[in-house]
Structure formats: structure tokens, C-alpha cells
């Protein structure tokens, strides 16, 4: 049984990137519920179109689907406030960081800091946010970001610069280290 004969299944090619898809949906949508809706819809689309996927970068392909789905959903709910991930202040993210550290005071500080950063990122305009998230969390190359967001590389670079600038300025204003 040559392993290659089983290498191109949806399970092997696409599903390993579910976390990436979930993260992007979380960052693009305003709350967990709509993020999950987008994730579900995107995964169904991915499954539907998988047969015609010929590319070599399934993660970029999947995230492009997530992004388009999210934008479709945001357009449907135009007028609804789309940004605040902020305000979900008791996110488990904090607990994760706490448990990851032995020093409770430092852990608390870090979790508060993490929440602040999360809120700052969430407060960025969506096109800056997605560019930053794809670069920093997915470690996409500029080219991959350009493909996933259907944006020229020059725009990717200026958005990334703008996003980081805003983030650094906002952090300084909030007294983050």
C-alpha cells in the first residue's frame, strides 16, 4: 500500500489547518458564535470545492475561503458592529496563559497584557487585522497574504506597516511594556 495513494484526501490536506481557519474566523468575526458559523460554512465550502483544488498550499487556500466567507457574512450584517472581540474579557485565553506559568503574579500580568493586546488587534480595521493575523499568527509570506486577500503585495506591505504602527502606538498609549 503506497502511502501516496492516501495523501490527497480532504482529511490529510485540509483538516490539519482547521485551527488556522478557526483562528482567522475568530479574528475576523465579532464573537464566537459568528466565528463558528463562518468556520462551518467555510469548511463546507472547502469540502465542496476540494475536488477542484489543484494548488500546493492548502492552508492559504482554506484561509482564503474563510476570509471570503467572513466577508460575505460581514456584508450580510452590514451595520452591525463587527469589531469587538474586545469585551469578551473572561476569555479562556487568559486561563491558558495563567496555567502556563508557575509565577501567579507574572502570569496575571501576562494574561492582562495578552487581553489588552488582543483587544488592540481586535480594534484594528478589518483589512489591517487580517493582514496582521495572517503574517503574525499564520506566518504567511507576503505572497501568501497577497493571494489569500487578493491584494497586491505593495498593499500588503503598507497595511502590515500601518497595523504594526497602530498597535505599537496604542500599546504605548495604554502603558503596555
Amino acid at each position, binding site marked *: *500500500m*503506497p502511502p501516496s*495513494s*492516501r495523501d*490527497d*484526501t*480532504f*482529511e*490529510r490536506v485540509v*483538516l490539519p489547518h*482547521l*485551527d488556522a481557519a*478557526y*483562528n482567522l474566523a*475568530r479574528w475576523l468575526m465579532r464573537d464566537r458564535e459568528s466565528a*463558528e458559523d463562518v*468556520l*462551518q460554512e467555510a*469548511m*463546507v465550502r472547502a*469540502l*465542496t470545492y*476540494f*475536488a*477542484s483544488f489543484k494548488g500546493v498550499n492548502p492552508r492559504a487556500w482554506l484561509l482564503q475561503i474563510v476570509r471570503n466567507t467572513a466577508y460575505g457574512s460581514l456584508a450580510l450584517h452590514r451595520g452591525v458592529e463587527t469589531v469587538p472581540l474586545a469585551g469578551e474579557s473572561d476569555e479562556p*485565553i487568559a486561563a*491558558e*496563559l495563567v496555567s502556563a506559568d508557575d509565577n501567579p503574579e507574572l502570569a496575571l500580568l*501576562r494574561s492582562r*497584557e*495578552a487581553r489588552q*493586546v*488582543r483587544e*488592540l*488587534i481586535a480594534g484594528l480595521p478589518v483589512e489591517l487585522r487580517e493582514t*496582521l493575523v495572517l*503574517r*503574525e*499568527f499564520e506566518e504567511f*509570506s*507576503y505572497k501568501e497574504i497577497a493571494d489569500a486577500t487578493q491584494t*497586491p*503585495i*505593495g*498593499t500588503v*506591505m*503598507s*497595511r*502590515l*506597516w*500601518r*497595523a*504594526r*504602527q497602530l*498597535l*505599537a502606538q496604542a*500599546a504605548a498609549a495604554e502603558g*503596555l511594556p
Partner: protein
Amino acid sequence: MNRTTEYPAPDCDKVLLVQAELDGELDAAQAAALEAHRATCPICQAAQTQLLRARALVRVEAYETTPDDVRARVMARLRQVAPEPAAAARGTARGRARGWAWLRGPGFGFGLGAACAAAVSLLVLLPGGSDLAEAVVAGHIRALQPGHLEDVASTDQHTVKPWFDGRINFAPPVKDFAAQGFPLKGGRLDYLDDRPVAALVYQRDKHIINLYVWPAAAATPHLAADRTIRGYNVVHWVADGMNFWAVSDVERNQLDDFAALWRMP
């Protein structure tokens, strides 16, 4: 690179290159040229400081993995919408179409609780399926011992099928696929899942395929995830109220072909 300025351009046109270097987008020559410039450019030095600061901030943020319940609901939804293999195969590579099999697995009726259990490892299949798959493989190996393969040796399905009458309390379907390269060799009784089951023996070139058949508890037809255990390929499906487990050392695609023949209406 095309500079699109939908945001105010940096004060020095090399700032985006400073950023590109930090993002690992410059080759050695470009980085060296930039280094020479940056040594004399306060704007680029300030930009670098700011970029490093932004990066450090973001590093605080942890990557969130998909919660188990979300994953389970996604998997359930995917199973629900997974197209029929025939539809999936249309105009696509066969190997890819075969890849749908796992999804259609336990069927939607299998439900959320079980899907949760399966969420950690997607290849875990069916309640107790893992043990059963092991048992199927063990049965296959046992059957390959000399004299154990068939209780009734016949290439005629009309001989094999009646042989089971009175030996088990159900009538297993028996089909011969000699024309398709999977000739029926015979049948025997075996014991799986705490009950007597029908075992049909097929040959593919020099390889033996054992197909175990017994009534299914749930009538929902489905094709479950297939697996490889100790070098043997296993395919399981449910159709017409029967469990089917096919096991063999033939290549995966051949075993899938065999399963597909069986599943054709």
C-alpha cells in the same frame, strides 16, 4: 514592488524594506544594502524599533486551538454534507474521491457525543470500531493459516450463499466479481463482535480478501473511515442493514475498488 498608498506612506521609502527584512522577505544582498542605509537613517532606525515592539506585543498573544465542541460540530456538519462517492468522483482523481470515505463515516445519526469523542483523533471510528477493526485483521490473519480459509470452497455464489443457510440466522448477500478481477473463492463461518458472522473469501491476483458480513444494529447506510492495521487495509461500510468489513493486504485503492463494487446498487 508596487507601492499602493491607501495609508500614509512612511517617511522614508525604505521603511517597508526594514519591515520586509524583519519578516524574512529579503535575500542576503537586499539585507546588506538595507543595512548600509539603515546605519545612517534615523527614520528607519525608529521604524525598526517600533516594528520590534509590535512584534513583541503580538508574541504575547497565544494561538487559540479550535475548541473540542466547535471541532465536533464542524465534523458533524461535514459528515452531513459529504457528497456521495459517485458525485465526488465525477471529473476528479479517483484517489481524491476515495478520500471522502472517512467523512461519511459513522453517519450523521452517529451524533455529536460520539463526534466529540472522535474529535481528538479523526481516524478513530465507530463506537468500539477500533477494537473491531483489530479483530477483523486478527480474523483475517487467522484465516490465512493453512486449511482455515474456506469452509465452503466454491466460485459459484449460488453455492456459497445457500451454504450459510442453517449455519447462521441471517442470509448474507453473496456476489461474485470475477469479471472485475475479484473472483469469489468461497465462504466460511467466523466469529466477530461477539457473534457468528459470514466470511466471504475473494482473490485478487495472489492476494486474499476477507469480507465479513453480519446484520447491523443501525440500518443507516454509510461508509466509514478506512484504516491500515499492521500492514493490512481495512474498509468498513454498512448497507442494506448489514455490516461489511473488508480486509486484505492488497493495495488500498484495490480494496476501495472492491468496496465500491459491493456498494453499487
